[in-house]
């Protein structure tokens, strides 16, 4: 497309091109400069702070080199916090993507009233994370709705929010139901864009339901799958809000995650330098994970539409 534009522009006089460049760069200036300033303050600032020790009360900053990073390595809490963080990355990205795809296939049927079910799954995405989390806290309170439901079959009550794997699983469920609707919509759009004649041709060739899905539909929507997978990886760090509202990372640091630990160190313990080092670590982690997926994308994605 751009090649065509260029060949049309080529014979034009330099003056017109210069005017075009000035006009274009002028339009780009506000956003570019704005992002440059804020981005520099944000990213440059966090790296700089991570190399210092900030005394909030005295208002002094002292350069300490890599000391804060060494503290991450020796921090005994880190093994719990990191394994929790990775638990959410893996569960929310893998299970989250599979569940979204399964729901999309289920909702792709032609049934009367199917739109009501599509809307139902989308509604939690419209509610703020805080509202969704507070409602779930209400459901999970001791002797609340969930205890009442499992009590009907003679189970429980369970300590839903008192740490351990049960709490992590509950967090994953709350986070997943909150945003899966958006991914379902992305998959539904991709599924409906698969050419019907391809599927019909496969059916004529005698391919069964599963074979048609695996070998015809799946390659066609692979770009959407990878996009959703990547979104879920970066989105998985967002469980922070749930942790803050449901358990405060407790008991102890049992249910804490990296993003919550940054908040706790910076704004509750006033350990700005250490929080900044954790933030750089989180940033590097996000870039590394999305970078890996982006590389894998090249090998796997059959149909490049983006």
């Amino acid at each position, binding site marked *: 497309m751009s090649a065509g534009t260029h060949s049309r522009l080529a014979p034009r006089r330099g003056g017109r091109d210069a005017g075009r460049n000035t006009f274009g760069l002028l339009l780009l200036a506000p*956003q570019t400069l704005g992002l440059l300033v804020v981005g520099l303050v944000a990213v440059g600032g966090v790296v700089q702070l991570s190399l210092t020790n900030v005394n909030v009360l005295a208002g002094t900053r002292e350069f300490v080199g890599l000391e804060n990073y060494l503290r991450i390595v020796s921090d005994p809490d880190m093994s719990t916090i990191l394994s929790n963080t990775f638990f959410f990355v893996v569960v929310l990205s893998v299970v989250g993507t599979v569940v979204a795809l399964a729901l999309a296939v289920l909702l792709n049927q032609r049934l009367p009233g199917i739109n009501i079910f599509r809307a139902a799954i989308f509604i939690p995405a419209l509610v703020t994370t805080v509202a969704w989390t507070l409602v779930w806290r209400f459901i999970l309170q001791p002797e609340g*709705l969930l205890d009442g439901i499992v009590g009907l079959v003679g189970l429980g009550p369970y300590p839903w929010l008192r740490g351990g794997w049960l709490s992590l699983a509950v967090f994953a469920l709350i986070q997943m139901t909150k945003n899966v609707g958006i991914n379902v919509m992305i998959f539904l759009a991709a599924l409906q864009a698969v050419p019907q004649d391809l599927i019909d041709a496969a059916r004529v060739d005698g391919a069964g339901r599963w074979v048609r899905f695996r070998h015809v539909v799946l390659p066609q929507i692979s770009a959407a799958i990878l996009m959703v997978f990547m979104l879920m990886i970066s989105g998985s760090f967002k469980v922070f809000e749930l942790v803050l509202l449901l358990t405060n990372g407790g008991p102890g640091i049992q249910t804490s995650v990296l993003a919550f630990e940054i908040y706790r160190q910076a704004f509750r313990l006033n350990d700005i330098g250490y929080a900044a080092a954790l933030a750089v670590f989180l940033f590097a982690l996000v870039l590394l994970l999305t970078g890996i997926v982006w590389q894998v994308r090249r090998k796997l994605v059959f149909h490049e539409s983006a």
Partner: protein
Amino acid sequence: MSQPDRRRSVALRRVPSYLLLSIIALLFIGPILWMLSGSLKSISEILRYPPTILPETFRWENYVQVFALQPFGRQFLNSVLVMVLVCVVTLIVAIPAGYALGRVRPVGAAAIFVALLSGIFIPPEAVIVPLFQTAADLGWIDTYWPLVLFTALLSTAPVAMFILRQAFVTLPAEFEEAATLDGASRGRTMLQIFLPLVRPSIASAIVFTAWFSWNQFLEPLVYLRSQEMLTVPVALTLFEDPLAGPRWNIQMAATTISVLPVLLVFLVAQRHVVSGLTAGGLKS
């Protein structure tokens, strides 16, 4: 088989599908219904076990209590104000940038596009510490400046720019040539010819930006101090009694008030909302 018989067998075959769909839908809608029911109960009924499904008496006064315990009306308007300002700043920078990258394509456009898009990959949780320090240095604590400017420039404008660029790129070049022949200036071509054509994408960008701002919790929690300045998500967490714990019924009433307008917007503009949130899925 006669006609009504066949119809009945089709309907019967659909029963398992509907059953499965209903159970799944309940997982997503159930919490919302439980919120509604809880918002109308008395606190003693809420603490009873096993819980009652529907309130014994509908206590509408819970909704009055919401406004007595906190300046909730003010806080609601605060959220709306911040949301509008974030949308305005985002559109002011993203529309020209999207147009420049989609249609004007000056030198270096490809590199600038990648640079602007990189904002999407900065996790807000990772940069909150230096941004807070900067806001403190500038005297911006307990003001909306950091909430509006940092959010718009760092988080929403890159996504809005991306949505708009995609829209501008797909428009045919003939419009531009015709406008130039008619002697329209570059600025007029952009504002009068192209801008009206991308209205659906502008709607998507607004929906995404408004949703992102309305949802923010960490930022207002960190930047805002006084109760009159708070936005809704932070205010919702404060319906607690220091001794008795959460005032569940009042909190659920406040949460209901915060959820209803968004659901109304969804019912009115379903298509724009879905396209805005999925396009903005880039940063959800």
